[in-house]
């Protein structure tokens, strides 16, 4: 490689390898945090969104308030919705996430018997419950895995015991981590008689967005304390997801600020230590601009090094998290090219922002003063 400014910058960084490494690790931790939290946040959104999609709803009605899980709705809400013009079908769902027996965080999904909520579940083994009175449940494939259950086993939910009649493929990771049973059984087991937290609606004229939007407003007016949205917008209006996104943004900002100050500190130390050398370069005719460019190249290289380490560590962390039984199926972490690009942009920003002040200090070094001090 020919001797050029980037080579000079990298060589200067390699002069104090430990300091460079530790600073790069500081940036890397930030990038890892950004990749992990954004990957989890995005993965959770995609996983949940996919579950909404496979359930085949056009509009989703939830109780106002609450976090990731919305507040409870009275079953009567569904009947009021069904009476509205434009609604083809509606089905109520009770949804809860809790640990069952030894397994952490499994979805309990109580679905109205005969409703379209069951349609996406394809039997792989065994059978569906005979009717809504049979004390039976079907398990998604991941749920069967984490619960270590097979067809014919029993399952304890709170004080109630259920027979597992079948293993199903729900067509989405979250559906596959679900224990699905008839709605009244789930309501009883969870002590929420007459309550649901989702009403999934199919429209007569699906795809007519304006009609759907006006129906949503109508639902909200006839059923106070509900929030009705197009299925694909459900997560955008979910307070839990909004908080997750805000948290993700906060961590990104925090990591950026910490990165900027970390790299700035190292670069300032480096510039102060090299005052005499910078003075020599200035004496040799290097323009201030070139000295600034050199310092900026160094801070950029440092940040990019941090980016590379952080991206690698972030991807490994995401893989490990995604495979852990705690999260498997609940969320499939997702790191797309846009997230990698954003992380790269953040690293570049850290490089430039952290290098500006040290570069300015470097460019202000008076060659005479620097050389006299030697």
């Amino acid at each position: 490689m020919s001797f050029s400014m980037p080579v000079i910058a990298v060589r200067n960084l390699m002069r104090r390898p430990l300091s460079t490494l530790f600073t790069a690790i500081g940036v890397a931790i930030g990038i890892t945090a950004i990749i992990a939290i954004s990957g989890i946040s995005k993965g959770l959104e995609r996983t949940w969104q996919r579950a909404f999609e496979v359930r085949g709803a056009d509009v989703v009605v939830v109780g106002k308030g609450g976090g990731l899980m919305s507040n409870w709705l009275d079953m009567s809400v569904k009947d009021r919705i069904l009476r509205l013009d434009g609604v083809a079908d509606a089905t109520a769902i009770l949804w809860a996430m809790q640990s069952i027996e030894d397994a952490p965080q499994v979805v309990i999904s109580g679905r109205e018997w005969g409703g379209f909520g069951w349609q996406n579940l394809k039997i792989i083994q065994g059978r569906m419950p005979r009717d809504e009175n049979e004390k039976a449940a079907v398990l998604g494939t991941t749920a069967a895995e984490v619960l270590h259950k097979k067809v014919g086993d029993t399952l304890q939910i709170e004080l109630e015991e259920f027979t597992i009649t079948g293993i199903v493929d729900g067509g989405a990771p979250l559906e596959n981590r679900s224990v699905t049973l008839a709605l009244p059984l789930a309501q009883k087991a969870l002590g929420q008689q007459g309550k649901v937290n989702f009403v999934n609606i199919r429209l007569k004229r699906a795809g007519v967005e304006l009609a759907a939007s006006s129906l949503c407003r109508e639902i909200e007016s006839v059923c106070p304390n509900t929030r009705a949205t197009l299925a694909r917008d459900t997560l955008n209006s979910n307070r839990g997801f909004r908080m997750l996104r805000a948290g993700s943004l906060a961590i990104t900002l925090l990591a950026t600020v910490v990165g900027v100050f970390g790299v700035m500190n190292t670069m300032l130390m480096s510039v102060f230590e090299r005052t005499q050398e910078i003075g020599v370069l200035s004496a040799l005719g290097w323009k201030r601009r070139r000295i600034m460019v050199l310092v900026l190249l160094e801070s950029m290289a440092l940040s990019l090094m941090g980016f590379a380490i952080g991206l690698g560590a972030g991807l490994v962390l995401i893989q490990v998290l995604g495979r852990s039984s705690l999260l498997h199926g609940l969320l499939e972490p997702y790191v797309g090219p846009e997230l990698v690009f954003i992380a790269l942009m953040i690293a570049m920003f850290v490089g430039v922002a952290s290098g500006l002040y040290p570069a300015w200090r470097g460019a202000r070094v008076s060659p005479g003063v620097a050389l006299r001090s030697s």
Partner: protein
Amino acid sequence: MPISPIMSSVAVSDSSAPAARLRIFEAEGLSKTYDGGRIQALQGVDLIIHEGEFVAILGPSGCGKSTLLNLIGTLEKPCAGMFLYRGRAVNDSFDGQAYRAHDLGFVFQAFHLLPTFSVIENVQMPMFETNWTAKERYQRANELLRSVGLTERLNGFPTQLSGGERQRVAVARSLANRPSVLLADEPTGNLDSISAADVMSLIIRIHREQRITILLVTHDPAVASRASREIRMKDGKIISDSGGMIGLARPHFSEEDPQ
């Protein structure tokens, strides 16, 4: 040690008889103080230096000789007085960095080579401000190092070299951009007598072959005696000048020497 001629873009002629007598530097009342005026490093120095001269500035420590060299090299700004380079006023609107890059070569007592970079890389450092390609920079540095007898040390690092070798690298670096003036501040001050003689011979050879104007600061009369003109300083003033300027004629800031 085979040493090839210093590459020159200037015709070689007899150094003892500069034909044109063009003034390269003119200074009048040049003063410099430090520490808020408590230290008077230079007190109203008047000086004319002609192109092609080899001037030794001699004096004890603290006499202001290095300060004078720093002002000429625009490494520092004078507190008072006027200073011209080839008739152009060296003031705030003067581009000192371009002047240092294109017209000057520096050799320092402490060598000031960059320790992280190899010998050949050090020599290339000044060339980043000129329009050399990477290949040309390398070739030029290679030729310069050959000319100072360091062909075997191209990829060595400054810490692996002796003092004399380091100063020869510094001399090669000072010639990188084909300067018209070489400013050498105690170039033999950190060297043993053999290396010092070696470096002085190199500087004299550069002067002889390239007709570069050389200003060499030293406190060693033996070193100074090898220059064609000797300026003695004491307490920030010039006390004698073998070039005959002192007390004879004051610079009048014109293109032609009045003599």
